[in-house]
């Protein structure tokens, strides 16, 4: 029995190729409208995908005048989409470097309420030059320091999610009490970078623990992802590389990232990629492998990497909405024909869609146990 594939799409601008905005069927200004994002995510949902991620950085995506150099806040874009989708996971990127763990925790918990248990969060560090100056803070000296801070931030966020037990709201008219305050917990986190008292202002979200994801390319982020994430996006160059990376990130589910240009005929896909490259001074390279070809060819590749040990894939459409529609309308049927992809919408929370166990509350007292 082959295990089914997990399939995600990473949304960003009008596609991941820096010149994609120049040839899209959409105007560049559309990426600053709510409708645009709703249509993309509804398309991904119609394709029965596990989740979409919303790309983000603390500062602008780029300063290059020739590229789409503005972007909306990803957590809010995901929130705008949540009430008008039903099944698909919503995973915005948010940075841990220049933000408040308390705000992050409450925002993602709220997204989990808005989506009835479909929220995730892709944690990222802000290491680019100039980003700290946006807040008037000195830049961190070491990348490893940023990841240490990220690990602390995830720990605080997770503690805050658990800081209310599920049954803390009692609405007991006889005693006049809305909550049982013994079921709320101070998180009392004190670390090198911040202290957070708690509890959260938001009751425990539907999933208990929304899904924490991270993108990782190297030793330090692999370690961070292994320690802190439920889901890690990695960028193998081939099946053998995939097998090696999987060994280096024990713990979380592993999705391999691929940039895709997808057409019914391979030459058309290559030609589209080439046309976009020709708009730049040199061909575009990505941190992830760039695939151009047919749905059958891509399915072959995905299955060979699956056999190397990855749990799923996050596809980055080279151009939007074109390559997203190619994924949902061409690739998904091929995977379904091969019996490796679902044919009905995932019914439950994002955690259950991904095969993650129900989250146990670290503060909850087991039923019947004495309260200390």
């Amino acid at each position, binding site marked *: 029995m082959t295990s089914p594939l997990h399939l995600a799409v990473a949304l960003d601008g009008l596609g991941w190729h820096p*010149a994609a*905005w*120049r*040839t899209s069927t959409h105007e*560049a*200004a559309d990426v*600053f*409208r*709510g409708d645009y994002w709703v249509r993309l995510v509804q398309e991904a949902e119609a394709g029965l995908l596990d989740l979409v991620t919303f790309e983000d*950085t*603390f*500062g*602008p*995506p780029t*300063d290059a*005048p*020739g590229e789409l*150099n*503005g*972007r*909306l806040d990803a*957590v*809010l*874009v995901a*929130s*705008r*989409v*949540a*009430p*008008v989708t039903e099944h698909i996971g919503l995973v915005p990127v948010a940075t841990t470097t220049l*933000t*408040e763990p*308390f*705000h992050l925790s*409450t*925002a993602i*918990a*709220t*997204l989990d309420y*808005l989506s009835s248990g479909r929220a995730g969060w892709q944690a990222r560090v802000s290491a680019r030059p100039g*980003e700290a*100056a*946006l*807040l*008037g803070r000195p830049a961190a000296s070491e990348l490893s320091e940023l990841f240490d801070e990220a690990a602390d931030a995830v720990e605080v966020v997770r503690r805050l999610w658990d800081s209310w037990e599920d049954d803390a*709201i009692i609405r007991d*008219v006889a005693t*006049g*009490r*809305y*909550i049982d305050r013994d079921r*709320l917990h101070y998180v009392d986190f004190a670390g090198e970078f911040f*202290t*957070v*008292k*708690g509890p*959260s*202002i*938001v*009751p425990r979200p539907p999933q208990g623990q929304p899904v924490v994801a991270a993108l990782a390319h190297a030793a330090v982020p692999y370690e961070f992802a292994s320690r802190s994430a439920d889901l890690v996006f990695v960028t193998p160059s081939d099946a053998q590389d995939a097998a090696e990376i999987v060994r280096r990130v024990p713990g979380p589910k592993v999705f391999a990232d691929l940039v895709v240009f997808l057409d019914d005929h391979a030459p058309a896909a290559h030609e589209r990629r080439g046309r976009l490259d020709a708009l730049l001074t040199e061909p575009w390279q990505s941190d992830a492998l760039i695939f151009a070809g047919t749905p059958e060819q891509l399915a072959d590749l995905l299955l060979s990497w699956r056999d190397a040990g990855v749990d799923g894939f996050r596809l980055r459409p080279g151009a939007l909405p074109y390559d997203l529609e190619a994924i949902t309308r061409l690739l998904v049927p091929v995977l379904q024909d091969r019996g490796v992809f679902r044919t009905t919408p995932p019914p439950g929370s994002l955690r259950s869609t991904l095969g993650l166990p129900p989250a146990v509350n670290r503060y909850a007292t087991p039923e019947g146990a004495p309260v200390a």
Partner: protein
Amino acid sequence: MPKQIILAAHFPGVNNTTVWSDPEAGSQIDFASFKHLARTAERGRFDFFFLAEGLRLREQRGLIHDLDVVGRPDTLTVLAGLAAVTTHLGLAGTLNATFHEPYELARQLATLDHLSGGRAAWNVVTSSGPFFGENFRKGGFLDYADRYKRAGEFIDTARELWDSWEPLAPDRDAGFFADTGTFRHTGAQFDIGGRFGVPRSPQGHPVILQAGDSDGGRELAAAKADAIFSRHHQLEDGREFYRDVKARLARYGRDPDSLKIIPGVSFVLGDTLADAQEKAHHIRRQQVSPQTAILLLEQVWNTDLSAYDAEGPLPEIDPQVDAESIIQGRAAQHADRLATAAEWRGIAEQKSLSIRELIIEVTGRQSFIGTTATVAAELDEYVQTDACDGFILVPHLTPGGLDDFVDGVVPLLQERGVFRNEYGSTTLRGNLGLA
């Protein structure tokens, strides 16, 4: 044409005015509750929906306060969700200038403005003292005296960021998207620079509300805000506040109409005046449970009164005036404890009131009590006689507390020609008549 009334809907919050014990009281956290109230407000052609912000759960005597609603969702996240299920309603949120940073908040508000097609509004507040700070990186860093300095410079900085982009004019053929967004702000509160990541939003500047009532707060509003969320909901008191604040505008070269004054008010509707009074009293008893009565009394006496019976007489001991405040996480309500205690004792003695009856009598009576017709007439009188420009209605019930108002009072205001039948604009600025 008579003055047009501004109406906003406040999501019931974490004070004892929100009745959670009623059989009809729904979830304070599920999105369905927010959607219901927002859609009801939009059905009533309201100007905006209003949501407060939580930074830490309230405490009294060192314990998490458990008698009122506790817990609420993140403000911006809910407002972005509401943008998906409404089309014209403004989306206003309180966001604290102490525990947010200008770059990030300006980015989030510009995002909300884009995602809602021009309906974002920001109620600027500040906090000083260490209590909230314990949940944030900088701790309680802000001196009380510097609150309005930070708020003022925060607003200025946000506006500089929002103004840093020219309107988009991308040229695909030439491969030019934009080369704007660069900013540099140097001031006492903020020293930041770089490039802002969000193109100019539909409103340019989201609408700015200000809620402080002190002289400094009024001056800040006169200098920088588009609207004031005020507490003055008595007719004479309201007129005095209105005169005072509007008179300050000339100093900043502003027109009186450019700053809207909108008090937060509550209401009770009945079939007859007597019916409304009876309902109002019933709601007050729900709002002031025996436990809540003791707790509100403790806020004046500033000491543990848990041994007292709420249905019995007031304590004979005097309030603690020198001790540190026993309540954390909300603004101080009682400046002179001894004077308040003396006043309350006088009322209790005169009317033979128990602790609970006294608290019901002296705290937070509803602002407008009557039939749909009398309430509509009263609201209109307030606005036409310059006690205010409109109202932020605070229902006592989630999520259905605004239903009767929208079905009963709004049509009467429309008949009077003082409230819109249809939205005139797709942006909040447009609907409020702001430039």
